[in-house]
């Protein structure tokens, strides 16, 4: 019988009441007295020198309050990067300045040049259109390999080249890996592209700056996954505002997928302009702006080699990846192709020798940073594609080849620096075979053939490092912040509880799941617990939501704070019950003395804490509120096995996804329904990447796919019914809840399954196509099968 409350119950998402009734409060719903509106003038060339910005006509247009250009920001700090990668020669990465408004040069289409603040949105836009920017266009670099060629135009004149870093991991293993590949019985090589994506959250970015002259306090309302990170980056590095004078609020946020982690120029602009003008300033991104100013995702070009011995054991993996950084370093961009990618190249397999080389490259394109999965989908895709290709080349069953090479003993220290604490890859593969009904595949293939379609089956595994991350470790790896989290459990006098958490909920359902945990620990009804998030003035601290970390890291902080609360409450209960603290038990919201019938209710204790008439004031303070910071001891390692069946139309190359199953190991699960929803959404994005999505630049750096006419998002009829299972749970060993994180798994695990399935379908039709780059549009598939 499934639980109906607490940990393990599929409690309905309480936040959906407001989301589904249109009563959410998003940043764009915030309208302040006297607010002005900003419209940005953005570059329509990819690379150029600004000769002049003529604002004379615009300044006299109706409603214009003030026009800002780069000159106004000359003394303002650069938008900082939060992670410094050290290259394989021990040198720090090349790190260019990233101005709020362009300083003399534009470096990508969409780079902000000037900003008009006016009384209305329309007036700001009209005036922006009257600004004449004279730009001498320079040759642009778009292709990463061309950007690294001698004599290529430089994105940043003050850098040595367009190479951000040349990273080797593990550099000490390089010679041994080279040797193993040379001596291997078989080497499978695959060159592939991990296509550039645009996150496209339903809610575009919005920022409202509000400066209070009387107390010299700035407030920024923004569409962020992590308000404290924005306060830190913008306050300390860009605008020089101390924390106590800067409040950052991220109210309801309509989806983030990574692209709302980062600190953006527009946030700094509205905060700065509000101070300068002494009135609130608001910016709401249009969808077109979102395409050319939200950080993009992925965009790796990789060559991977997998070496096997004569018994088909993996002996070495060597990769060479070009990772696009775009024109500037976005907040966490350098970490994505390195520490979030190289460390995952062992996958689920006991490959003893691994060497990963990544060249991060500046180009005249929108900056690229973390997008759902961030580095881990890129790692999974190349590894699971090359294994499939190896199986095909060797004529062995791809599932058997994987099983043979699975890591089976835990903890397992990979040759790429991470230690997996738990997992059972055989169990998830067994489960996958069962829920996918793999034994029925051949019959289904025949049915498809009878309809004139080629059916293919693709299977893959994945592993991810989530619960980001141990601070001392990431500090050594170049992070310029700690990655702990924090929570305050505030028990009110009548026993209800507010939990202030550093994680931000923008679709993940924290408002439902976090109270489930507290309710379980104390034994009270979930409705007695609310969480508060998204406001630096209300929550203790927090590094926010990304990297499937909320429950594993912030949830652990919450558990630690709740444990402190319970310990104190037991002391109070011991006093009330005239018993020894050691004998007090808390169950179902009641304190009792072990072995007796003496008890008192949760509410009696909480009331005593706030009305301390009969209270041990000499020993304990009144009140019942505790804060905990939690720094994880390790990453968590969710893993799983995914399968996809497709039909390919031999006449047109059109692919339809017929069946899709996911067997995940997320450790313990707090709310199975929400976990399933997260997996569904992740798979939809993974299928989107595999089948439809792709940001396309022309050779001059014009973004051609900058609207939904040309950037195809997955729709309901592109997606199958999913079969998902998370019953193979090996709980995380180092966090109190035993949870691993589920937010990114679907997006990480699904693209290789789709591509493997299409390759298999083509093979069944007699077309031996080694690889097709995503997205697998009918055009690409048809071209590949008719090559």
């Amino acid at each position, binding site marked *: 019988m499934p639980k109906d409350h607490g940990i393990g119950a599929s409690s309905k998402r309480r936040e959906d009441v407001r989301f589904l009734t249109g009563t959410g409060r998003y940043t764009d719903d915030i309208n302040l007295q006297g607010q002005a509106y900003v419209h940005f003038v953005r570059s329509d060339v990819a690379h150029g020198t600004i000769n002049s910005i003529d604002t004379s006509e615009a300044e006299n247009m109706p409603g214009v309050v003030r026009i800002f250009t780069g000159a106004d920001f000359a003394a303002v700090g650069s938008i900082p990067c939060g992670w410094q990668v050290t290259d394989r020669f021990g040198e720090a990465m090349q790190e260019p300045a990233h101005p709020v408004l362009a300083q003399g040069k534009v470096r990508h289409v969409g780079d902000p040049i000037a900003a008009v603040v006016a009384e209305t949105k329309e007036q700001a836009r009209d005036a922006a259109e009257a600004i004449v920017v004279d730009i001498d266009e320079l040759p642009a670099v778009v292709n990463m390999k061309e950007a690294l060629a001698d004599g290529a135009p430089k994105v940043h004149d003050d850098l040595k080249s367009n190479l951000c870093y040349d990273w080797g991991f593990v550099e000490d293993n390089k010679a041994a890996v080279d040797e193993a590949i040379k001596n291997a019985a078989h080497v499978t090589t695959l060159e592939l592209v991990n296509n550039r994506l645009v996150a496209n959250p339903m809610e575009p970015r919005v920022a409202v700056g509000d400066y209070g002259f009387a107390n010299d306090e700035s407030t920024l309302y923004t569409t962020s996954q992590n308000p404290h990170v924005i306060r830190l980056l913008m306050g300390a590095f860009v605008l020089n505002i101390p924390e106590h004078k800067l409040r950052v609020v991220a109210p309801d946020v309509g989806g983030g997928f990574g692209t709302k982690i980062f600190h953006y120029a527009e946030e700094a602009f509205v905060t700065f302009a509000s101070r300068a003008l002494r009135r609130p300033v608001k910016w709401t991104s249009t969808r*077109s702006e979102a395409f050319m100013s939200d950080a993009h995702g992925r965009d790796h070009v990789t060559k991977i080699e997998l070496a096997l011995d004569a018994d088909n054991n993996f002996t070495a993996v060597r990769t060479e990846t070009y990772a696009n950084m775009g024109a500037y370093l976005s907040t966490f961009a350098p970490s994505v192709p390195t520490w979030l990618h190289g460390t995952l190249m062992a996958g689920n397999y006991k490959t003893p020798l691994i060497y990963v080389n990544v060249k991060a490259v500046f180009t005249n394109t929108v900056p690229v940073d973390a997008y759902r999965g961030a580095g881990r989908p890129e790692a999974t895709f190349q590894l699971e594609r090359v294994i499939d290709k190896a199986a095909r080349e060797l004529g062995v069953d791809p599932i058997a080849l994987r099983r043979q090479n699975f890591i089976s003993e835990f903890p397992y220290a990979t040759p790429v620096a991470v230690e997996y604490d738990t997992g059972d890859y055989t169990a998830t593969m067994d489960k996958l075979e069962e829920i996918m009904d793999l034994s029925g595949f051949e019959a289904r293939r025949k049915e498809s053939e009878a309809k004139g379609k080629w059916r293919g089956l693709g299977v893959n595994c994945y592993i991810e490092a989530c619960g980001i991350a141990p601070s001392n470790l990431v500090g050594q790896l170049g992070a310029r912040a700690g990655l702990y989290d924090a929570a305050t459990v505030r028990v009110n006098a009548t026993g209800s509880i507010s939990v202030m958490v550093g994680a931000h909920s923008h679709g993940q359902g924290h408002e439902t799941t976090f109270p489930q945990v507290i309710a379980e620990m104390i034994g009270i009804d979930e409705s007695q617990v609310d969480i508060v998030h998204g406001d630096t003035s209300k929550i203790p601290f927090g590094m926010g939501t990304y990297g499937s970390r909320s429950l594993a890291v912030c949830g652990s902080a919450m558990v630690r704070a709740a444990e402190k609360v319970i310990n104190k409450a037991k002391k109070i209960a011991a006093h009330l019950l005239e018993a020894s603290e050691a004998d007090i038990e808390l169950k179902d919201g009641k304190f009792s003395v072990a072995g007796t019938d003496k008890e008192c209710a949760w509410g009696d204790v909480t009331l005593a804490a706030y009305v301390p008439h009969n209270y041990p004031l000499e020993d304990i303070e009144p009140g019942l509120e505790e804060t905990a910071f939690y720094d994880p001891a390790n990453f968590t390692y969710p893993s799983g096995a995914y399968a996809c069946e497709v039909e390919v139309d031999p006449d047109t190359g059109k692919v339809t996804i017929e069946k899709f199953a996911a067997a995940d190991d997320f450790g313990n699960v707090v709310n199975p329904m929400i976990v399933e929803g997260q997996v569904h959404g992740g798979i939809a994005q993974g299928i989107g990447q595999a089948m439809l999505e792709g940001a396309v630049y022309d050779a001059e750096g014009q973004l051609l796919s*900058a609207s939904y*006419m040309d950037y195809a998002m997955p729709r309901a009829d592109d997606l199958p019914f999913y079969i998902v299972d998370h019953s193979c749970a090996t709980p995380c060993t180092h966090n109190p809840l035993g949870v691993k994180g589920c937010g990114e798994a679907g997006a990480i695990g699904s693209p290789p399954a789709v591509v493997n399935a299409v390759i298999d379908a083509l093979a069944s039709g007699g077309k031996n196509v080694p690889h097709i780059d995503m997205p697998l549009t009918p055009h690409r598939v048809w071209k590949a099968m008719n090559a």
Partner: protein
Amino acid sequence: MELADSRVINASPDIVWAALLDPEVLKACIPGCQEMEGSVEDGFTAVVVQKIGPVKATFKGNVQLTDIVEGQSCKIVGEGKGGPAGFAKGGAVVTLAPDDGGTLLTYDVDAKMGGKIAQLGSRIIDGVARKLADEFFQKFQNVVEGPEEDEVAADASEETVVKKGFLSRFRKS
């Protein structure tokens, strides 16, 4: 974006060539052309209002004629700035060859778009460009081939006036 086509014009290469270099003819034939000034030697400046998908904009630009092989071929190079709509620039190589009493006009356009019009997607732009090129050369053909007799009498539209003007000027020279 690349665009290549040809059409046969029922006039001698000399007449077609002269028309191609005549700002009045160009003004009349370029779809949406509001102003056109200048000369072959110094280049032309033009103002063109055009609608591409949902974007309507006034393009201000200049046009140069280069690589002139008298009476045979030239390259028309231009750049237009549409303000917030973006920009377009490119070139068209136009070649004339005698064809059974008429002229075979071949054009090969290579154009680049930036800003909003690029972001709308090349599939729209290709279609629009093809339509504009068709429209231009259709009008050009009409002007050069001259009006039918009854058309001159009945129609005093700008295009017909230009046709008459062009033909009479050409016959005088």
